[in-house]
């Protein structure tokens, strides 16, 4: 309801433009990469993931350590961009066939395997500044405010989509995820039991996607079906099958 009023109000539009120009983003046309899921896109300013911004994704539960769902979620986003993708990490345990299954072609991805975390940050920033890339991904443990602000500015300058996978060595260290960073959005992806099939076997994987923080927007929780062959997610159709108790308490913790 409030959204409908805002769209039709010219005074508010004007104010928004003014604020946008004050923020320094007014000179350049800021485009977004929509998810194609109206409910999700409505929560994001501009109707999608902003290019030229930093987005943080972590896994929930065990995913905080292995970052499997977060990597696939990011792989799906990167698959829907055009141009090369640079992926910076310290230890290479990705199994690329899985990323190829969400539509990310191996020819598009250049991996930078670094010896330490600082080198990941430096390479990530260099790639963000380069411009013309589809997306730049980094797998990081720590993301201090100063570093994230610097990365955010680098992304703003070149208009590249910056994606950070946060993964920790132990699940208890994941409380670090509450600390503020300069990223535009912050997501947490937790696995849920897969979509039931009428026969024995595994259906499409489902994730509890928490939009924990979004600049100039409101967060939300969504149950989505995992990325398909083109990297698209969908709102899980089976609304009756809400996450079980385990999933719910785990989302709140």
């Amino acid at each position, binding site marked *: 309801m409030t959204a409908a009023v805002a769209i039709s109000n010219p005074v508010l539009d004007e104010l928004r433009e003014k604020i946008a120009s004050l923020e320094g983003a007014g000179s350049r046309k800021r485009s977004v990469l929509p998810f194609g899921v109206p409910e999700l896109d409505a929560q994001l300013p501009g109707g999608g993931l902003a290019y030229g911004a930093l987005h943080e994704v972590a896994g929930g539960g065990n995913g905080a350590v292995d970052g499997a769902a977060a990597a696939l979620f990011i792989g799906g986003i990167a698959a829907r961009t055009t141009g090369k993708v640079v992926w910076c990490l310290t230890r290479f345990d990705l199994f690329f066939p899985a990323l190829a299954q969400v539509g990310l072609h191996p020819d598009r991805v250049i991996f930078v395997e*670094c010896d330490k975390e600082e080198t990941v940050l430096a390479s990530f920033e260099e790639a963000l500044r380069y411009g013309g890339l589809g997306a730049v991904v980094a797998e990081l443990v720590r993301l201090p405010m100063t570093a994230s602000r610097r990365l955010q500015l680098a992304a703003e300058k070149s208009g590249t989509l910056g994606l950070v996978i946060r993964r920790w060595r132990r699940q208890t260290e994941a409380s670090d995820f509450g600390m503020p960073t300069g990223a535009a959005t912050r997501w947490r992806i937790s696995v849920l039991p897969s979509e039931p099939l009428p026969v024995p076997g595994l259906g499409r994987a489902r994730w509890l996607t928490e939009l924990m923080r979004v600049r100039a927007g409101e967060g939300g929780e969504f149950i989505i079906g995992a990325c398909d062959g083109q990297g698209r997610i969908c709102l899980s159709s089976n609304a009756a099958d809400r996450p079980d108790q385990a999933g719910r308490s785990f989302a709140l913790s």
Partner: protein
Amino acid sequence: MPAAKAQALVQGLTMINADPVADLATLERLTLWALSQYSPVVAMDPPDGIIMDTEGADHLQGGEELMLSGLVNRFRGRGLAARAAIADTWGAAHALARSTDRETVIIGRGETATAVNRLPLSSLRLPAETVQSLRTLGFATVGDLAATPRAPLTLRFGPEIGRRLDQMFGRVAEPIDPIRPADLVEVQKSFAEPIGAPETIEKYVSRLVRQLCLELEKRGLGVRRADLIVHRVDNTLQSHRAGTAKPVRDIAWLTKLFRDRIERIEPGFGIEKLSLAAIIAEPLIETQSASSLIEEQVTDVTPLIDVLGNRGGQRIFRVAPVASDVPERSVQRIAPTADEDGATWPLHWPRPSRLLARPEAIEVIALLPDHPPVSFTWRGKRRRVKRADGPERIFGEWWKRSSEWIAVRDYFVVEDDTGERFWIFRSGDGVDAETGSHKWFLHGVFA
């Protein structure tokens, strides 16, 4: 040993005349090759050695150890037995390479004195008769000689012994006069007053890059490897090497490669000369870029790869499929600039997004031969399996290893009650013990 004596010792000995001139020419060829491959400052160390200053250039080969073992392996590939050593000084490296029985030796910074103590006198680059007389006097190792007062030695043998010892221990500078091929594209700038400020260095480096690009343009070449050599007033050289993934003649690109290294230049008392050389240059033909009206322009990422690759501390690669069913063999790393052939994996079967470096053993309750587990314990946590899919049978590759002759792995995708999905396999087909140990392993984590 005289030839007659050798012939008497070994029957049917084949004699070949020594050809010092041809040996020297071959050594020069090898030196020029080493110049293009390893380091900007390379010189011949006749009759049988090559000396290089590898500081600031080893990162292109992945560090000192990798560089040295790679060097020895490449010589061996050509049928030459080589020994290599890295040390602080020319003298020490020379001695170590000739007196050790290991193929590669690396002596850390400041450890030269202890490393050379036990080396024989012959490794000291002294005339043969001096070494002989010293042996007669009872000296056996470099350490013995270094611990002896200088004055009597100098009185008897002249200043040569002291000079060689000082060179070995790094007390006297011994600059390497680098070899230069005849057709090298090189530009240099000498300064009337030594320079030292980073801004000044940067200004002159970018000027040199511009000059070099002009020179290259005249010849239709592009740089693959460029060296910046810094001559300091105290007669020492510092070199910085930058490599590119394909021929380059772009001023901004090359300047950026060197600008990243300027902070590592130590001007000391000042720099009196800068020289920039294109050690490897390849033909570069200008091509017309596609118009944005016809097709979408794809950004070339080679400059980014060069910038990251010249930093050190990281490996840059792409992955490509290999025609193998065994998961850990189905992915290979290729060069980031390799041709894009559009090949990908067959996408029929679910694959985990993270693969463990090596499969981890799990405790399982399962009905043999072909049922998925009912529960399993991984890393001390027991999980009940809610849903499962499988088996996907993968056969061993007998053409790789004979032990895989009838090996089988049965892969299952299992989901526990919180929804976490794992890729587990049983070694063996569940019936025949020949096909595997029937132990269970966890191999990957699904999203």
